[in-house]
């Protein structure tokens, strides 16, 4: 029996490395603000894509304020998530989202964006948003 207690103590020490033994934390907990901000950002991106899904695609200058707002919102969201402990996965997901939006904007700025590119761009962005939210919701369900 003594060996069993020693084992438990060692496991606890490994898990929390502090006096006592709290719950194991392998990943950041659910964050409602992140959930809401990601959902809000997705709506903004959906709105942008809806305006771009036509021929000819509206010129870059008309969409630039929307790109700027989305970039600003994403930067705030990333900053918030950077300071959450054990949250590298979500930060990497937000970086991937940032690169996708940069690709889209670069094509638009260089007058390369045409309507047929919008559906696949939307599919990839939707997949990214879904992946970010899927993980956040998994954290929420685990907590309940």
């Amino acid at each position, binding site marked *: 029996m003594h060996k069993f*207690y020693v084992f438990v103590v060692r496991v*606890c020490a490994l898990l929390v490395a502090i006096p*006592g033994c709290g719950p194991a934390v392998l990943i950041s907990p659910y964050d409602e603000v992140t959930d809401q901000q990601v959902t809000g950002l997705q709506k903004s991106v959906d709105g942008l894509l809806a305006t771009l899904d036509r021929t000819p695609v509206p010129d870059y200058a008309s969409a630039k304020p929307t790109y700027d707002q989305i970039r600003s919102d994403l930067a705030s969201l990333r900053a918030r998530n950077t300071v959450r402990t054990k949250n590298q996965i979500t930060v990497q*997901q937000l970086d991937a989202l940032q690169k*996708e939006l940069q690709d889209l904007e670069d094509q638009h700025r260089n007058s390369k964006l045409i309507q047929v590119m919008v559906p*696949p*761009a939307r599919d990839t962005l939707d997949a*990214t948003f879904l992946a970010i939210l899927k993980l956040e919701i998994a954290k929420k369900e685990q907590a309940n």
Partner: protein
Amino acid sequence: MALSIQGIAEAVLAAIKPVLAKSWNDVQDFAKTESTKLAQTLANIEQLKLSGQIDEDQARALLDMQKQAMQSVLLAVEGIGLVTAQSAINAGLGAIKGLVNGALGFPLIA
């Protein structure tokens, strides 16, 4: 030659599954669905390029977006695996909490 959506999706899944063997039951539905959707998008991009509707630079941009989306999906799968592992560990600790704390006479496991 047109890309096979099923072939791409299966290749992605085959690469993911061994890495996530322990949490596969929890993430396989999401992984399968997203792998198939991303394979369809990839095939769509290829079709746009082959039909001459987009040039190499445009195809490269869409493929880069696709690559980032795939990375996000794989990260979600990895994260869900961690959530699952965390739940299992805490359930295990919860199961022995009363026994251990009672035997030791102090709350070692909070």
